[in-house]
């Protein structure tokens, strides 16, 4: 957190190299995360740019006492992705193209399995397993009580496990275990 505060202070002071370093480190991960939420690499790219641009222009919207910078960034980009979904024209589906050939393999394995999970579970798994976000950070990003994070993670893991193994009872797995 002290590193976050130091970085944030530098960004507030207009330190472009510091901000570029943060951008280079986080933008690819944020892009991958958002691409799964939106289903569109173009939309994901736009949201990444909007998120970072907004942060650069108004860095004091982040409160270092309220959580990690990365969690805050993922949180606001998730909200932007939600807005994108709301505003999206349902008649004009995204004409996405694969980013790279590896995406073909990806689509046939992970996406197929993950697509069967409720988005909330998918988000939790991605942020925990891929991004390594802590319970506290997950609570910040998803705006849920920290106590709920553990039970929801369990539900998500169990749902993924059943889908992965082709368990027909997968649909019975609750979205949330309280």
């Amino acid at each position, binding site marked *: 957190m002290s590193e976050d505060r130091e970085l944030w202070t530098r960004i507030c002071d*207009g330190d*472009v*190299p510091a*901000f*570029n370093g943060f*951008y*280079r*480190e986080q*933008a*690819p*991960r944020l*892009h*991958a995360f958002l*691409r799964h939420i939106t289903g569109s690499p173009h939309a994901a790219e736009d949201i990444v*740019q909007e998120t*970072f*641009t907004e942060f*650069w*222009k108004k860095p004091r919207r982040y409160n270092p006492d309220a959580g990690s910078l990365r969690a805050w960034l993922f949180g606001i980009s998730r909200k932007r992705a939600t807005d994108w979904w709301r505003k999206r024209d349902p008649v004009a589906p995204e004409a996405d193209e694969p*980013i790279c050939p*590896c*995406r073909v*393999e*990806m689509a046939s*394995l*992970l996406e197929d399995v993950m697509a069967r999970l409720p988005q909330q579970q998918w988000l939790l*798994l*991605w942020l*925990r*397993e*891929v991004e390594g976000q802590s*319970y506290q950070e997950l609570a910040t990003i998803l705006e849920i009580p920290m106590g709920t994070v*553990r*039970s929801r*993670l*369990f539900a998500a*893991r*169990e749902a*993924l*496990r059943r889908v*992965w*193994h082709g368990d027909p009872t997968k649909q019975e797995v609750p979205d949330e*275990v309280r």
Partner: protein
Amino acid sequence: MKCDEAAEYISALCDGVTVSPAAAEHIDSCKICRTRLNDYVALGAELRRMASLEFPEAPAPQPWPGRRGGPAILFQKGWKTMRIPRLAFASLLAAIVVLGSGWARQSVRANSRGSVLLVQYTPGSDPGNFCALSAVDKSSCGGIQHVKSGVLLWQIQVLSKDGDRATLGIRAQLRPSSAGIPETVNFSEVENLPQQQYLFTPGETLSVQVDGFGTMTLTGQWIDHVPAIASGSVGANTDLDPGPEQIRFISPLLLQGHNVVGDLEGTSTTVDHPSQAVDIYLKGVGRFDISLSPLPGAVQGKVEFNRITFTLNGQPYLFVTGAPISRSPSVWVLYNPSPPAWDSTGNSYLGAR
């Protein structure tokens, strides 16, 4: 403990959380729970492995927008709206241009409080002219002016800078017409006049009494560079002077050696922040990003008035534009001979990133 009860603890174990002894014992001895633990761990690893395939390469630094717009400088605004009786000052301007020509080549690195005093002076009630005086070189400007009561000789020199204030050395004398106007007035005579010292604070008006003539007034401000047009009448070509962090490209032409390899005649763009870059795509040549900030893989280019010279792969390149490009003596030039397909529409263009 039953397996269903232990299941959530298994998930917690995967998150680095310790669990109750009862749960730990059950997981250790229960084959089903061990399998579940292994599944969770394996799925997490598989998820990370597959996600790793998805992360795009780290993007290049972006030209982030400025945080606030630059406020209009009233001083400069005033220049553009003022009208000058040029004939009345023709002889004076000629002297200033001669003096000023030596300063125009001076290069001063930009900073918040510059060492160049831009003085606007008004002999009598006439509208003023300006000249740029370097505190580093202790440079001066001056002139000969025919006024009602005779000929006014004057010279202004920056002797020193102390914080925001400057010590000016001013020589001024009226040659009254009643004494008979000499046929020729040699400007070098001004050097023989006694020099009076004045403390001058930019933003305030300094009044200098000249016997037999009246009052000369001076206003001014510190700037961080000698303007492209270092002296002259107010409003004369001041628009040609690039802003502090600007890069201006107007009708750029690119030469490789002696060959023209790109011509974007009639196009123009301006960037106002070091994080931004001029973006040029030349069909058949590639893409150039030009920025005041270092860009990974970029080479340094030398800026001289309306030219940028740089070297790529041992080949000399030269951008020539229709106006001064930047106050900075150098810029960074990033060259990409084959930009991504989405980045090039096929036609040459000039823009900003």
